[in-house]
Every structure is written in structure tokens, then in C-alpha cells.
């Protein structure tokens, strides 16, 4: 353990000096990358909703993330146990982290170097070095870990176990799981309020968002969703995101085919927006004026105008889109 920690410290030191030497990343491409889980492709969209490319990638691509400077992006490929790393501008494959068992989602540590991955098949969360691909640490979770969220200070990691109805809290500094928090049925994804005080967790089968107080690690409230005309069991929230000012949250309601718009301070539901079938992945553009929704069972992406809270258009992509990534900052 001690040697691993020493290694980390060294790594962080290297990263900081490394980060200082690279120039600010070149102009963003403005493109939207969609991971299509079922036909192993990435669809590339322009901000004018035009599909410019369907590029092949590894098997069953799901979670995606930019590197700290956005010059690279990572794609988790569940069926061939790897994380593929692409150059953002050229979309050329740069390298792979292999032997990552069935990765689903992941988060990048604020140090830009550590990638924390949930290994769905292995009931574990693992930490990899994005530069070397080295496995730095591994933590036991419940069955089918899914959502991963690192706090802004880089101290804590939250991992949701879908099958065990638990949120695990990992203390990275002390290298241990410090709490297992029981939540509602089938926890999937997280959002942290920008002040880092509240952790929102979607519980897919319960149709709720559980709110956890980060300080005490206790459940303090929940929000239940029910768009008009739906039965509670049809409402299966998955992705949840928040605006940078912490005022508004968006929740993809899965089989209820809607996105819920939530006023974060009052925790009240402002509106339900009709989207495609089984909405999962949500991404906001940098200016937060548009929301991209990946509809897994209608093979398309719905683009929402966040001022009028209405869908602008829906664009067909590949088979079973899982989520999107937007290069616009």
C-alpha cells in the first residue's frame, strides 16, 4: 500500500510538470461524439445536427470522457475489456488501456492522470493511470458497479452498485472504502452540486433521485418522477446532470421517454420534455444552451433548447446510442 501511495505522489508530481509544458489545446472542433453500444461505432455530429461520420471503434462502446486538456478522449469498451484513447482533433486511435474488465462508466480525477473505472462484471472499481495504462488500485464493490463520481477536491470517489443498491464511498488518500450507503433500487448515475454539498443518485427501478449529504454521507431527501400518463414502474431514471451554477438539473427518465427538468434548490420538477425511446445519456453544451439526449431504443439523439425547454430536433445515429461527448470548449 505504502509503495503504491508513494508512486501516486510521484505520478502527480510528474503530471503537474507535464501539464505546465503543454500549450493550451487548440480550437475545439464543435463536434458531438455519440457512442453506439450495439454496432460498435461512434457517430460524429456537427452543431448543425449533421452526421459527418460513423467511425468504427472497439466492442460495445459506452462511457466516454475527455482528458484534462481535451486533446484526447477515452471510450470504455465493455465487450473487449479496454479503454480506447483517441486524439480529439484527428479522431485517430492513440493507445489503449487493455485488460480493464467490462468497463462501463468512469470519471477522471482532477489530477488529470487517474481514471476511476467501474468494472461491471468484476464487482470492483479500479484506478488506472491514463498515460501508462497501469492499474494503480482496485476496490471491492457490490455486484454490477455503474456510475462513478470523483469530488472536485479529488478526495472521495462515489461508485454505485446497481445490483446491490449501494453507493460506495472510497477515500483515495487513505486508500479504502469508508462507507456503503443503502439507496433505492438499482442506483445508476451521479451528479454533484457545484458546491460539492449534495450528491444526487438516480435509482432506476425505484423511479427516484436519492440525495445524499456529502458531509455526513447520509440520505437526506428524494425526488420521485412521474410524467403524465405513465405508471411508476415505467419511470426508470438513469443519467442526471446539473448546470454549472447549480440551479438546474436534468434527469433522463429511461423507459418513460422523457427528460425531467428539476429546479435544484427547491428540488421541484419544472417540466417533463418528450424525447426518444429509453433516454439514457445526457450532455450539455459548454454554453449550456443545448442538451443532448441519447435515446437507446430509437437509435437517435434528441437535441433540446434549454431556454424554451423544447426539443429542436432528433437526429438518427447508430444502434443503441449510450451517451454523447461534446468538444466545444
Amino acid at each position, binding site marked *: 500500500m505504502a509503495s503504491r501511495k508513494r508512486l501516486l505522489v510521484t505520478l502527480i508530481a510528474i503530471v503537474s510538470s507535464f501539464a505546465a509544458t503543454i500549450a493550451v489545446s487548440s480550437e475545439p472542433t464543435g463536434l458531438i461524439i455519440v457512442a453506439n453500444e450495439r454496432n460498435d461505432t461512434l457517430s460524429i455530429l456537427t452543431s448543425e445536427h449533421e452526421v459527418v461520420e460513423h467511425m468504427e471503434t472497439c466492442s460495445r462502446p459506452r462511457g466516454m470522457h475527455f482528458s484534462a486538456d481535451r486533446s484526447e478522449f477515452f471510450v470504455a469498451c465493455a465487450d473487449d475489456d479496454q479503454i480506447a484513447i483517441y486524439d480529439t482533433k484527428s479522431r485517430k486511435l492513440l493507445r489503449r488501456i487493455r485488460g480493464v474488465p467490462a468497463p462501463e462508466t468512469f470519471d477522471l480525477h482532477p489530477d488529470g492522470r487517474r481514471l476511476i473505472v467501474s468494472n*461491471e*462484471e468484476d*464487482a470492483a472499481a479500479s484506478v488506472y493511470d491514463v498515460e501508462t495504462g497501469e492499474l494503480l488500485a482496485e476496490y*471491492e*464493490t*457490490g*455486484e*454490477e458497479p455503474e456510475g462513478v463520481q470523483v469530488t472536485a477536491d479529488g478526495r472521495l470517489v462515489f461508485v454505485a*452498485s*446497481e*445490483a*446491490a*443498491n*449501494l453507493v*460506495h464511498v472510497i477515500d483515495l488518500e487513505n486508500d*479504502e*472504502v*469508508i*462507507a*456503503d*450507503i*443503502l*439507496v*433505492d*433500487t*438499482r442506483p445508476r448515475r451521479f451528479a454533484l452540486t457545484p458546491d460539492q454539498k449534495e450528491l444526487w443518485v438516480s435509482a432506476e*427501478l*425505484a423511479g*427516484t433521485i436519492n440525495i*445524499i449529504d456529502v458531509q*455526513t*454521507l*447520509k*440520505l*437526506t*431527501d*428524494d425526488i420521485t418522477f412521474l410524467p403524465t400518463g405513465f*405508471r411508476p*414502474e415505467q419511470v*426508470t431514471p438513469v443519467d442526471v446532470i446539473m448546470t454549472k451554477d447549480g440551479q438546474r438539473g436534468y434527469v433522463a427518465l429511461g*423507459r418513460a421517454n422523457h427528460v425531467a427538468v428539476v429546479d435544484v434548490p427547491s428540488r421541484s420538477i419544472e417540466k417533463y420534455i418528450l424525447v426518444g425511446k429509453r433516454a439514457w445519456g445526457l450532455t450539455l453544451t459548454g454554453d449550456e444552451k443545448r442538451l443532448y439526449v441519447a435515446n437507446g431504443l430509437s437509435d437517435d439523439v434528441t437535441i433540446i433548447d434549454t431556454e424554451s425547454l423544447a426539443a429542436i430536433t432528433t437526429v438518427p445515429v447508430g444502434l443503441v446510442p449510450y451517451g454523447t461527448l461534446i468538444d466545444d470548449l
Partner: protein
Amino acid sequence: MIFRLFVLASLVLFNESLAAQEEVRIVYLGIDGDTYYEPQVSYTGLSLKDRLRPIDGARLGMKGTRVLGRALGLSFELDEQILPPEESVLAAAQKAQKDGAVALLLDLPETEMQEILSSDLEGLLLFNIRHRKNLWRGKECVANLLHTLPSQSMLTDALAQHLRFQNWPKILLLHGDTEADVTEADAIVASAQKFGLDVVAREEFQLTNDPRRRDFSNIRLMTGKHDYDVIWIADENGEFGRYVPFATAKPRPIVGSEGLTANAWHWTLERYGAPQLNQRFRRKSKRNMSSEDWASWAAVKAVLAAVTEAGSGNKEDILRAIRSPDLIVDLYKGLRGSFRSWNGQLRQPILLASHNAVISLAPFDGFEHQRDQQDTLGVDEPETLCVL
């Protein structure tokens, strides 16, 4: 679920003595050499429908309970009791009750099952993971008995909904002469009536090459007389049914024992987390997960969900939680699982599948129910013959 607030977020104390932990014990009861699991060899030594003991399902359900136990301050144990044939199953069940087991998974033949159900095992949850017959969900129901395998009526109702949905209302029903096939044919007729389908003809087939009895054995003759949309076969043995597809007088689809079948589970289900469950099972057991494997897995999952809800190993609390209409068991079939108060049957979607694909899931959109759409499948509260 705010009422759970105070139980949440138990801090993990890895060094705490394990001896202090309360144990939640689930007993799996079976009989060694049970003829039900002997190879079902048909003519020429072919094995068409082998049955395998679904204990692997229960084992898979237990996987990961260490971490759940870590959160709850409990420990979980699966006590596998496969008894030698000369030993009494009742004595084993009574011992489990005395030793404080929470649940008993019954993998027993009908006679032994009846023996257990006729005795008083109060406070012990009994799970039927093997039998589809309606009887134990009806007239001969028992208060502490829960069924995770769907009943025969749920399965035939699911297929009937599919035929209604496809607008194939006219059925030619072919069934064997065994008691099981006749009972199933009755269930098919009842489901057809429930969903407004028309059984144009109900014909009994026989396994014979006797030319004088060809009206009962010749597939072209049996399927050429009537005007129908679909053939529904009740043939548990399968020896007749497997020759019917592609051999009928009219080009019509086949459902029931052949063609499109109704199942609790299927190894090709692609949604609701099912691929993960199927992959985990396959990796562990080197075979595909059967409906019975799933039912035994679901029984363990239901106990775990109830223990989580109860927040302790207290048996009374667990019994109350498992019977609660608010229980949510994650069935990996897209809808919330809970037990029907009137007969202990697990509410669940039914998978309609061909040999290599799930074609659809029942309940179908459009079949509504005042309480839970899943209650459109199987015997509903007003019709139940079960008096608890």
C-alpha cells in the same frame, strides 16, 4: 424512501469481529438422485430437454452478499442441503426452522413438496422454485409459500396477450393425452377466453403410426381441417410437437410447447441488465440460465431485498417486508417484482421467445389493470381460489 433514512450509511468497520454479526440463512432443499433431473433420453438416445438442478441460480444470487452484509452489519449464508433419498425432507425443514433459517428454497418432487406444505412451518418462508401448476397457487395454497416461478396461467395468459396483440385470434389447439398436457390445454382455453381469442378446435394427438388412428397422429390431417391463424401445442414431453413446425397443412405459426414459448427467463434477453446476469451465470456455470435457475436466483434476491428493507435479520420484519406491496425486487426484466397478497405468486414479466431470441415481453401495452399491469397475467384477486 425517506423512512429508511436512519438506517442508511452504516460506516464500515472492517476490523469489527464477525462473530457479532447476525446471520441470515437461506436453506436450499433437494433430494439426491431426484429422477426429475435424470437425463430425459428419447428414442435413439437423443437428449432433447435435460433438466439441471437450479441450485446454481441460488448460488449466483448469493454472490456479492458480502458487500451487502458489510453495509447492513449482517452475514448471509446459503445452506445447501441435497438429502440422500432415505432421509426425511420434513425433518430437514423442521430442523431449518428450529435453527432459525429465514427461507427454504424447495426443489422437491410433488409428493415431498406436499409433505412440506401440509406441515406447520410457521415463521419460515417457503419458496416454490420448480412447479408451475396452479393448484398450490389456488385451492391448496399455503400462507408462508411464495412462488418465484410463474404459474401455468401466467404463461398461457402471456401467449394469449401476444396472439391478441398480433391479431391472430383463431387457435387450433393440439394437446397430448397425459394429465399434464390436458391441464395445460385447459389453461390455454381459459386464457383464450380471458383475452377474447377463439379456440376453433381442440384436438388430442397420439404418438402412433397406426394408420387406423391417423386422425390423431398425422400432422397434415390434423392441421388441414380447420380455419385458424395459429397452432398452439401443449406437449410437455415434446416428442410430437417437435415434428409439427414446417409440416402443417397450412402455413401458420406455432406457439406453446414449440415455436414461440412462454418463459420466466431466456438466455438471449438483451435489455434491463439481463445480458449481465446471463453472462455472469454462463461464466460461473458453463451453461445458459434456465427459467428454474432464474426462479431460484429470484427467490434469493427477494429475501435480500426484504432484509435490506427490514434493515436487520429480524425474521418478523423480513416476513412483513417480503409480503409488502411496496417491495421492489430487481428481476432484470424491466418491471418491479413483488408478491401477490392473495396467493404468494411473484409478479413478473413473461418472456416470449423462439429458440434463439426474445420476441416480446408480456404484459403488453394496452392490457390495463387497476393495480399493476403485471396482474393481467395469471389468476387475479377476484378469481383466486386461494383462501389464506
